[in-house]
């Protein structure tokens, strides 16, 4: 089952949970599963049906160009990368 890592800005929705296994064959399905378990998650990562600007998906160590359409394997590791800056 793919393992997803929750980005820091969305961990208030997961009660601080950082990583969990989710049954999903694509990133889009994974987000729907997370929305069911953690209502509000979808709105944190999607805007008008697509990934929010400044959000990228990394699967198994590579930044994906396919976004929501990215396919997941049972052993996939999925990370949401958020655009952050200095200060």
């Amino acid at each position, binding site marked *: 089952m793919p393992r997803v890592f929750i980005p*820091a800005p969305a961990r208030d929705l997961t009660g601080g949970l950082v990583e969990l296994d989710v049954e999903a064959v694509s990133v889009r399905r994974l987000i729907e599963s997370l929305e069911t378990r953690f209502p509000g998650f979808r709105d944190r990562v999607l805007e008008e049906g697509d990934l929010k600007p*400044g959000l990228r998906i990394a699967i198994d*160590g590579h*930044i994906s160009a396919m976004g929501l359409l990215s396919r997941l394997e049972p052993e996939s590791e999925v*990370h949401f*990368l958020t655009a*952050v*800056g*200095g*200060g």
Partner: protein
Amino acid sequence: MPPLTDEERAVYEWQIWVPGFGETGQQKLRDASVLVSRVGGLGSVVAYELAAAGIGRLVLAHAGNIKPSDLNRQLLMTHAGLGTSRVESAQRRLKELNPRLEILSVAENLSEANAERLVGEVDLVVDCAPLFPERFAMNRQCIEQKKPLVDCAMYDLEGQVTTILPGETPCLACLYPEDPPSWRREFPVFGAVSGTIGCLGAMEAIKVLSGLGEPLAGTLLTYDLRDMTFRRRRLLKLDNCSVCGSTTDSGES
């Protein structure tokens, strides 16, 4: 390159011992210049480590005066300096550490208006700026002027760093093509988090300038200090990147 002086050999003895660096590496650092854009939580530590390592010339760009909320992480600022210029405080602290260091202090933040001039002053840029218009302006100028860019960022207990080599690697706009509307200039962070990423960014600059080791070229290092997890991710070159699309020599995956 002129040989090191006796004073330089004495000060940098411990790092000259590093295999692959030596006196030649030290000479390269001494003859190099770096722009640190903003000397806040990240940039203070980047500048301090580069000053300590014997970089020859620093250009520091940061507007404004020291505020109380700077002091948890901006290690070149002091309580006694509250209300005074950030870059002047930074320059003073750096010169205390390394009086041989040449510093150009600019009491402005980097912008589209001054990016070409500031990037043109140096051999390498370290991006420590909070806002994406600044970061994108720096990225664009580095690509145009073919200057290496070490990009540092953080949030909460997490950090990111990558090294952009124009013509070789994806650029910042490949990673984040648009200004993220949800990002804000003020955000939760500890000084120990910005200090960590600042040290990593300084080390990347030292490696690129001296030829030591392997920089994070085309690779994004991310870490989460909540559980001390460090990960490396390959960056993807955007074929249609508006900034580097026509300058990258080889495709990245």
